[in-house]
Every structure is written in C-alpha cells, then in structure tokens.
C-alpha cells in the first residue's frame, strides 16, 4: 500500500473512532444540564433525585470525555503529520478555527468539567449548575469551530490562492461559508440525539429491570423528549443539508443519490442494489423508487432538473457505492429512530409509557442507532467530498505528506489501531460497570424503590406512569 492509502485509512479510523465520543458528550452534557437545572430549581420537590441523576450522568460524561480528549489530541496534530501538503496549503484559513476552538471552547469545557466532577464540597449548588452550563456551552462552541474548519473543506469561501497557498481574504465569508449552518445544526441535532438515546436506553433498561427507579423515571421523559425532538430535527436539518449539497457540491450530490445522467423529474431511490462506479455496470435487481420525489425534495418542483454525474469527468466522481450506501442507510436508521421516538412521545403524552414494556425494550435496543447513523453521515459527507480534500480546489492525493515513508505510517496505523481497540474495549467495559452500579442510592436506603417493589406489577407500572405527569 502506498503512503496515501495508509494515510487515508489512518485518518478514517482516527476520526471515526474519535467522533463517537464528542457526539455522546454533547448529548449527555445537555441531559446533565437539564438535570442540574431541575435539581437547582427543586422541581416537584425532587432535588435529591435530580442530584443523584445528574451526578450519575456526569460520571458517564467524564468517562466518555476523556476518551474523546485522548483521541482528539491525535486529530489536532494529524493534519501536520500525515497531510503536510494540505496543511501548508490551507493553514492560513484552516488553522485559525482549530486555534479558536482551543481558546474559546476547549479550555471552557475542560476546566469546568474539572470543577463539576471534583467540586463537591468546595463549590455551592449554583456554581455547580453554572459549571454544567459552561461545559455544555463549551461542547457546543467546540462543534462550531470544528465544523467551520470542516465545512470550509466542503464549500471553501473567502480566500484567494497566492503563490500556491490559500490566503484568507474575508474572515466572515470563510467562517460563514455556504454549508456551515446546515452542517452545524445537523451535527448538533444528531449529537443531542445520540446522547439522549443513550440516556433513554439506559433508563428504560433500569425501569424494565426495576432498578434505580426514581432516577430512571426522572430521566426517561427528559431523554425521550430530547430524543424525539432531536430525531425530528435531524430530518429537518438533513433536508437543509441535502439541498445545500445539491446547490454547492453537485457531483457529491449526484454520487450520494447515484444519479448518472442529468434529467428532469428525477425519482427518489428508496432501495436498490449498491450502484457501481460505471453507469454501464449498474446491477439490475429489485428497487424501490418514488417518481419525481428527488426533484421535488431538492428544488420544490416535481419537474426540476437534477445534475447527473455525466456533467463531470470521471476522475472528479466520488466513490459512488460507498456514498450511496452510507447516505441511504443513514436515512433508514434515522427513520427507524424517529418512528420509535414518535411512539414513545405519544405514549408519554397518553401517560402510558411505563406500561409499555415492548416499547421500553425497543428503546433499549435503539440505543446505538444514532451513533451508527452519525458514522454513516460522516462517511457520506467525507467520502462524498472525494476526490477533493478541499472541494474543487485541492485533491486529496495532493494533500498527503510527501516526506513521511510508508512504513512509518504503517507503524503509526498499527499503534493507533491497537490503542483504539484497547480504549474502545475498556470504555465499553467501564461503561457496563458504571451502568451496572447505577446512580447512588437515595439517602434512607432507596426507600421509594423498595416500596415500589412490594407493589403488584401493574400497580407499580401505573404509579410510575402517573409520576411522569
């Protein structure tokens, strides 16, 4: 394998692994903030329950955050190590948001997380709430800067190429490039959803197992509403994002949708065999299409023309099968997620949620879906951008470090894969342990749970259901 392939594989693995953790952090952070707010305001006189819930989910946050920090460290330096030509070419524009992330966001979340986790007994209740707020603000600001950098690679703006280097000419045009708004909203919506699904899945599992009931029942509605709103927002923002891609990155859009020839009134493919790179080789098989829907969804006109791959030379095409499959499976998972949460929201509204063990089980099983969908979404965005590292400006092949020997990249790839397998396994193991322990018992020996367990099953569930109101 040559250095470019190795560097690509290493980047894909390191970013893919890294991205699990900030996604969860953003979502769980938001849940912690809601719990902290309810604790401070002593809602329903249940400050203690919210306190234990917040402390528990803060522990999960911290465990996740540290793996994100570690794997994020690699990201900060990997542009220089493996993509030196790219770095020298775009540093004028791309470096600034990374530095700004440190100064304006990462210091904030790291410093206040220390306060949130270790501050017990040293800070007041309100300061603890404020620390949670700053952590969440930090995670959301972090995402702003990282997505500015990444979106600039998708839709570069506000620059000029002088002496073979991209030079910033308009900061606001570069930062507020055409894809930043939909991509930021879509990413944050999916991260909130990922955290909410995790909090919901775990709490639903506790309810099913009749453990830690007071905390679990307090978290379920919060997580469910977040998961429902987040899933719906993913569709809304995904729609914005797709429209933007069609407008600003037509070859990427054609690849994702596997549109080979330009035409009007283009159908939306719901299901098909994986497409191929050459139109002539497309496999024949069962497929499901909705007539004219793609034209309508993209341009609001059933007969609008959609640019096909035939408008671009083949060397500018993205890998079509991978883009198509990532995108369509992402949408499939998103649909599934929204469906489960729509039922959940309905049951919650009808106050029958805790009498629905089938739904609770579905919520447990659905826990990892957003995380998989997020990986597929990133694959769609980044594979769809190929063969460009900066869309239409610099090819990925031209961005790789010239002077790093392939065997050194192979060594680092082996090192990082080994390390990440270890970290991933340890994270899962320790998560299982933390979830097994659950939140701290209520003072007075978890009295409410003991009392609940003495009730007959249906009555128990009824009481739990009423409590949601």
């Amino acid at each position: 394998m040559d250095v470019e392939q190795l560097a690509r594989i290493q980047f894909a693995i390191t970013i893919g692994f890294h991205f699990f953790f900030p996604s969860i952090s953003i979502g769980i952070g938001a849940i912690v903030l809601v719990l902290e707010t309810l604790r401070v305001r002593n809602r329903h006189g249940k400050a203690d329950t919210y306190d234990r819930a917040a402390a528990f989910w803060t522990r999960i946050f911290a465990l996740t955050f540290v793996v994100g920090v570690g794997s994020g460290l690699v990201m900060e330096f990997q542009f220089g190590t493996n993509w030196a030509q790219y770095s020298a070419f775009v540093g004028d524009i791309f470096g600034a948001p990374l530095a700004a992330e440190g100064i304006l966001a990462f210091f904030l979340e790291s410093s206040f997380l220390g306060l949130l986790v270790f501050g017990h007994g040293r800070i007041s209740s309100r300061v603890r709430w404020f620390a949670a707020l700053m952590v969440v603000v930090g995670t959301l600001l972090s995402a702003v800067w990282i997505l500015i950098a990444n979106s600039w690679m998708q839709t570069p703006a506000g620059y000029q190429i002088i002496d073979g280097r991209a030079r910033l000419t308009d900061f606001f045009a570069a930062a507020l490039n055409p894809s930043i708004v939909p991509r930021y909203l879509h990413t944050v919506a999916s991260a909130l959803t990922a955290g909410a699904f995790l909090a919901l899945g775990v709490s639903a599992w506790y309810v099913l197992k009749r453990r830690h009931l007071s905390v679990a029942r307090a978290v379920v509605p919060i997580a469910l509403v977040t998961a429902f709103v987040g899933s719906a927002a993913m569709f809304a923002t995904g729609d914005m994002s797709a429209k933007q891609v069609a407008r600003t990155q037509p070859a990427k859009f054609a690849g994702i949708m596997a549109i080979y020839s330009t035409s009007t009134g283009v159908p939306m493919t719901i299901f098909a065999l994986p497409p191929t790179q050459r139109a002539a080789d497309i496999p024949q098989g069962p497929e499901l299409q909705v007539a004219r829907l793609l034209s309508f969804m993209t341009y609001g006109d059933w007969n609008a023309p959609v640019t096909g791959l035939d408008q671009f030379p083949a060397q500018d095409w993205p890998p079509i099968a991978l883009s198509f499959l990532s995108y369509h499976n992402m949408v499939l998972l998103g649909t599934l997620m929204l469906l489960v949460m729509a039922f959940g929201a309905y049951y919650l509204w009808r106050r029958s949620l805790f009498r629905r063990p089938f739904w609770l089980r579905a919520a447990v099983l659905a826990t990892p879906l957003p995380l998989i969908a997020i990986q597929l979404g990133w694959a769609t965005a980044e594979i769809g951008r190929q063969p460009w590292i900066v869309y239409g400006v610099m090819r990925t092949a031209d961005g790789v470090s010239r002077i790093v020997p392939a065997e050194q990249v192979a060594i680092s790839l082996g090192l990082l894969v080994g390390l990440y397998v270890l970290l991933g396994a340890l994270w899962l193991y320790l998560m299982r342990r933390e979830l097994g322990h659950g939140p701290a018992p209520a003072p007075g020996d978890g009295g409410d749970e003991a009392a609940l367990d003495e009730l007959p099953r249906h009555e128990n569930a009824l009481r739990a259901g009423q409590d949601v109101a």
Partner: protein
Amino acid sequence: MAENGFLQAAWFLLIGVLLVGYAILDGFDLGVGMQHLTTARTDDERRILMNSIGPVWDGNEVWLITAGGALFAAFPKVYATVFSGFYLALMLVLAALILRAVSLEFRSKERGRAWRTTWDVAFCVGSLLPAVLFGVAIGNVMRGVPLDGQGDYAGTFTGLLSPFALCVGLLSAAMFLMQGSTWLLNKTEGAVRDRARRTANLGMAATLVLWVVVTAWSRSEAPALWDGFGFIPAWLVPVAVVAALLAFPVLIRRGRVVAAFAASSAAIAAMVATLGIGLWPNLVPARDQGVSLAVSTTASSDLTLTVMLIITVVGFPFVLAYTAWIYRTFRGPVHLDEHSY
C-alpha cells in the same frame, strides 16, 4: 500579503507564551506522573497523587492543543514540516499522552491489584515519555533540522536521536520533575510530601547541571543560537534561569512552597524565553545548507494573524480568569472522598 512585522512578531511571542503555559502547567502534571511509582507507594498515596491533578490536568493539556492549533494557524509551514518530519516521535508522544489521560480516569474504577498497577505504570510511562521527547524535539530545533529545497524535513527518524538532543530531553524531564514535586509540596502531606521534597531538590539539581551542560554544548552544536545574545540585556534571561533555580532550594528549606512553585515556573519560563531569543527570527533553523523556516517567510496572512489576535485578546483573559479561579477553588492539600479518582 503577509508583511506586517509586528503581527508576525506578536505571534512568535504568543506561541512562546502558549508553550510556557503548557510547560508550567502540564509540566507539573507530567512531573507528578513521572514520580508516581516512587513518590507514592501505597494505593491511597497513589490516589492522592492522581487526585492532586484530577480537576486541572485536562485544562492544562488544552495549552498543548491550543499551541498546536496556533502554530497551524500562524505558521502553517512550520506545523506541516515539524510534525511530518518528527513523525514517529510525535506519534509516540500522542500514544503516550492518550494512555496517560485514560489511566487517570480508569485506574480507580476497579479494585484489582493488577488493574491498578497496570494503570499506575501507564500513568508513569505516559508522563515520562512525552517529558523526554518534548525536550528531544526542542534539542533538534536548537541544533537545526535538515531541510530540503521546499522546506520539508530531509532527515531520518534515528537522526533525531543525537546525543545533544537526548541531553535536552533529559533536561526537560528534570525540569518537569522539579515542577511536579513542587506541586506535590503544595498538595500533599506526610510521607508523600517528604519524598516529594527530596525529589524536588534532586530535580532542581539535575535541571541546573543539565541546563549548564546544554548551554555550553550549544556553543558547538548550535552556535547560531548565540547570535541573539550579542545584545547584552538579553543575558538577563538566562541569568534569571540560574537565579530562580538557586532560589528554589532556599525557598523549600524555609517551607515557602508557593514561592518555590513560582520560582520553578519562572525558571521554566526563562528557559523557554532563552530559546526564543536564540531562535529569532527563525522558528526552525536549517542544518547545513538548507533554508531556515523563518517567522517572516512562514507566517500566515496579516488578516489571519489579525483575526486570531482579536480572538486571543478577547478570549484569553477569560481563560486566565477562570483557570485562576478554579486553581483557587481547589487550593490546599488533597483529601480523598467519594468523588475522587
């Protein structure tokens, strides 16, 4: 485009400030980690060491991340050349820092002896290796890096491991050891504190000796660095290094541990400043006939430097304010409780 000498100099200085901040703050974290196996012997002692940096290590590491980002933004060619040139060394540092980070979070989650010992070793090695390798990298920059016509690294991995560079690696490890011990003098009590006091003096002595050796050796290994010291007032900076190091044991003997921490930090800051004076106007001098990566030739556009300066001027006072407030909140010796590691 990139013409404004003031902006470029400001960013040379600011990267230096970020590196000083990192060396002082994560320096004590790394210094604590390096002596984790020796200064702390029982399980509780080791927990105390880890918890002494628990609330702050993560924020301290952000100085490194920010320095990396700032170098990328302000001097992209330097970021690209140094990190691709020092490829394997940097990957080792990153792997070590990752292991070190998770060892803090993971160690006390299980009771088993083997589990805890494994993470104790990971914490120690994960601290020692970056401490040495950061110095080795600096040593290479000091003696000049082989660069080709396009300003890319033209050397090998083993070429990075010259005796001089390794000596600078030992210096940085000694300096962090001193810094970490002084932190522990402020955060621990009893037997751990007694051991930390001995390590502090050892670290100071090693730092002083190695600093003198490196400085003398640089006359032949890195003669260009001495040019900046033709300007006589510049000598105040290395003199400050020696003065701070000599004041250090006196302050410790008198029990003035906060002042000792300040002296150790001042010594580190002055060492980095000495290096900065020597390097200017280059960031990475070329060895042999190559063209050095100078501040003026590698700087980003004036617009980028201006935008970043605004972000820094607006954002950094807040960072310093809440960082100081958090350190104040956690001042005093560590006591273990249910929320500790």
